[in-house]
Each structure stands twice: as C-alpha cells, then as structure tokens.
C-alpha cells in the first residue's frame, strides 16, 4: 500500500526492477495448503482425542471436531497427514534451498526479542515494513516450524509404536509420545491464534500472502534493515 514511505529501505539502494515478491508464489500456495491441512489435522485430532481424553474432563465440543465420530476423525487425520508431510517437506526444502529461512528468520537477537515484547505490550506494532520480520515474529515462526516437525515425529511414533519402537522409547514411551503430540497441537493452536489475530490487525500482511506483497531483493532488504551489522554473506 504505502511502499514509498518505507522507512527501512535506504534511498541510495537501487530499486529492484523485477525483484521477487515478498511471498513468491510457491510460498503462497504452500502457505494456504498448510492452512487448510493444519485445520483438518487439528480439528480431526480433537475428534480422536475426545474418545480417550488426556486431561480429565476436558473435551472438545462436536462443533469444533472434524468427523462426526472417532472413525471419521481418524480417517480425516490419516488422509490429512500425507498432505501435511508432503507440503511441509516441500516448504522446508524451498526454505532452505532458496535461503528464505536464513534471510527471513535469522539472526534473532535476545535483546531485540525483549524490546519487541515490551513494545507489543504497549500496543506499539511496528508493521510499517511488512517485508522484515521483527525478532518475536522470527522466534514464533521458528517455533511453529519446529512444532510442525515435532508433530510429524510424535505422530509417527504413536501411529507405528512397534515399527518405530526405538523412536517411542526415545520419546519416553507411548503415552508420553501421545501427550507430546497433544502439546505440539497446543503450541500450533496458540501460534495460530496470535498469527491470525495479527494478520487481521495488519490486513496488508494477509493480502500479501494472497497477492504476493511488495517486490523485494533479499540482499538490499537485509542490508537496509541492519546496516550496522554489515550483513552480507
């Protein structure tokens, strides 16, 4: 929207003529596939959970469950898992191969995290430039990516506890793996709430994930944001 007034890009930096979008099309496709699949996995997981709850007395109401009883929740879950894993592997490969993860998510400085948290608590959202993630965003994205990977690993353990018995004992047994799988869900749902709330507060971020957002070149952007770091690799 207001790209000219972007305070972080230095005026001397040459404007990229055909730079990549903030969110290139593979990212956008994978993001929205993941959004749908994650919702399928979470809500069908709740359907499975309700059959034998981990927290006594804590159930998910049928409104939130996918599948009208456990068999169908299970079938949704075991169908969704392929889309989650294939899409997730494509995303991780893309993130590492193109350097997107390194550009967008690193480095994280603890002082910056503290600073951003304090700012946020004072309702100061620095979202003029949506092409650069603040330290808390970086941290949250890294946490949710790790939680996603963890869900696949703990999911594999409770799906095939005999075939992957080594993994199960590494995780501390079947029931512990099951609780970890539940905890991973809680982390992802927690992220989801913050993520969606912030996207709605700053709608241009939401639109950028649909249309691609402003054009950027990775290097000029990184340099512009941390000129004092000499951040070129």
């Amino acid at each position, binding site marked *: 929207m207001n790209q000219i007034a972007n305070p972080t890009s230095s005026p001397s930096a040459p404007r990229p003529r055909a730079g990549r979008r903030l969110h290139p099309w593979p990212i956008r496709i994978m993001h929205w596939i993941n959004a749908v699949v994650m919702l399928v996995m979470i809500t069908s997981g709740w359907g499975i959970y309700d059959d034998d709850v981990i927290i006594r007395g804590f159930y998910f109401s049928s409104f939130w469950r*996918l599948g009208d009883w456990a068999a169908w929740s299970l079938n949704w879950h075991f169908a969704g898992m*392929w889309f989650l894993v294939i899409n997730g592997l494509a995303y991780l490969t893309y993130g590492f191969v193109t350097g997107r993860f390194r550009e967008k998510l690193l480095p994280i400085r603890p002082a910056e995290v503290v600073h951003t948290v304090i700012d946020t608590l004072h309702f100061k959202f620095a979202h003029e430039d949506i092409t650069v993630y603040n330290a808390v965003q970086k941290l949250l994205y890294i946490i949710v990516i790790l939680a996603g990977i963890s869900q696949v690993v703990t999911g594999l353990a409770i799906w095939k506890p*005999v075939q992957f*018995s080594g993994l199960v004992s590494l995780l501390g047994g*079947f029931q512990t793996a099951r609780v970890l799988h539940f905890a991973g869900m809680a982390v992802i749902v927690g992220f989801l709430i913050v993520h969606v709330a912030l996207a709605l507060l700053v709608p241009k971020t939401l639109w950028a994930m649909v249309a691609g957002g402003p054009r950027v070149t990775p290097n000029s952007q990184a340099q512009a944001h941390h000129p004092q770091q000499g951040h070129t690799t």
Partner: protein
Amino acid sequence: MRSLFRPDVVPDTAILDDHQPLIRSLERRGLIRGSLSLGALALLTGCDVKRPESVESALLAISRLNDDVQALLFNPNKLAPTYPASMILRPPKFNAYYDVMDVKPVNGKTWRLEVSGRVADKRHWKLQDLRALPQTSMVIQHICVEGWSYIGGWSGPTLRIFLEHVGADLRAKYVAFKTADDYPSSIDMATALHPQTLLAIQYGGETLADPFGFPVRLRTATKLGYKNPKWLTSIEVTNTYTGGYWEAKGFPWFAGI
C-alpha cells in the same frame, strides 16, 4: 436446551406488530449471512454438517491406500517391545462394543473351533488340542485406537504354529475370524505369521477369564486392540477380504502399530 436468545418474559406483542417488516428484513439478512458463514466454515474446516458421500468415499479410498502403505511398513521380523511379568495389569482392561455386564460366557467343554478355507485339515479343535501345541508367552503393550494402553501377559500357541498344523496355505492373503459375540475380524497373512501373534488361552499365567475371551482369543502385538477378536469360534484362511466389525463402520482395516 433453552435458547439464549429467547427472553424469559415475552414482550408486549403490540411492539412486535409495529416492527413486523423490520423484523422480517432482519431475519432475511441474518439468514443469508448465517448460511454464508456456515458455508464458508464448512469449506474451511471440511466440517461435516452432514457427512457427504463423496467425502466419505474419498476418505475410505485414502484409508485403503493407507492399508497398503501400512503393509509395506510392516516388518515381519520386527518384534514389539516386551516387559517384565511384574508389569502385567491384573485384571486386564475390558473392552468390547458392549458393556462388561453383557458378556455371554462360552462353555469351554462344548466349545469347538471351526477351521475352514485354504487349509488341508478342517477338523474342529477342542481347547485341550490348543493346549497340546507348543506354548509361547509374551508380555506386551495393548494399544487401543482410542489412545489408552496397558501391559498384558498372554500365553498360547502362535497362530503360525496353528496354521502350519492345519496345513494352511501360508501364501493366502487373509486369516479371518468369527467369534461368539458376533465380532468378525480379519488380518493379513504377514501379521498372522508374526512370532508375536498368538491364539491366547492364558492371561498372566492363568486361564483366560470370561470377559477377556475364554476359551481363546487372538492376541497380536503388532496391531491395535480392535484387531484382537475374543471368544473365537472359527478361523478361515482365505483370499477374499472379509473386513471386520469396526472396519464396516469406517475404521481402518490394517491397523498395524
């Protein structure tokens, strides 16, 4: 339940009459908005307002595909972890599609096990015949599809020894079971031949109790709990898929762990 939107004290109906057109337009608008957001929600979560048949058949198709993947993942030489006898839960957990009070005990003296299908010897088996076969004991974890688990100790002849004894076609696809409680089940041959698949006649060193499948039940360490039919009455070796009780209701057939 009483609607939250219905007031305890009904207002004067004259007010309603005055505002009838307004109320009607509000309702119309609300209806459109409501159905739109319901539709969006259904799209978003795949929520089954009513489980559509096309979705159901797609899920079942993937579930069958998963059965094949599970068969590939199944390693016939991989043993399930075993535990010390001190960890055996006594008595074991009861589980069936009905309450424990509704268990109908089987008379061990008159009980016979039918053997049919691709086998050389179709003679019926008595309990003492099963006892005469070499016995195997295992202390393994029982894992239910619901998520709960417990450690149990089971003894009896392996299904492999039984199948070899009756001259079964070990290249057949399935071993199918019928039970006294009308709980049909079937497993793949690879699992049937696994060393931790027993025709269990003992639990924790004692004769199997009535609620847990006396005189004989299947106990396999490499499948979920619902693949372990109790009170067996018939074993069939077959190439025809026969499914099972929960499988007919939508649960996956292979159910390997």
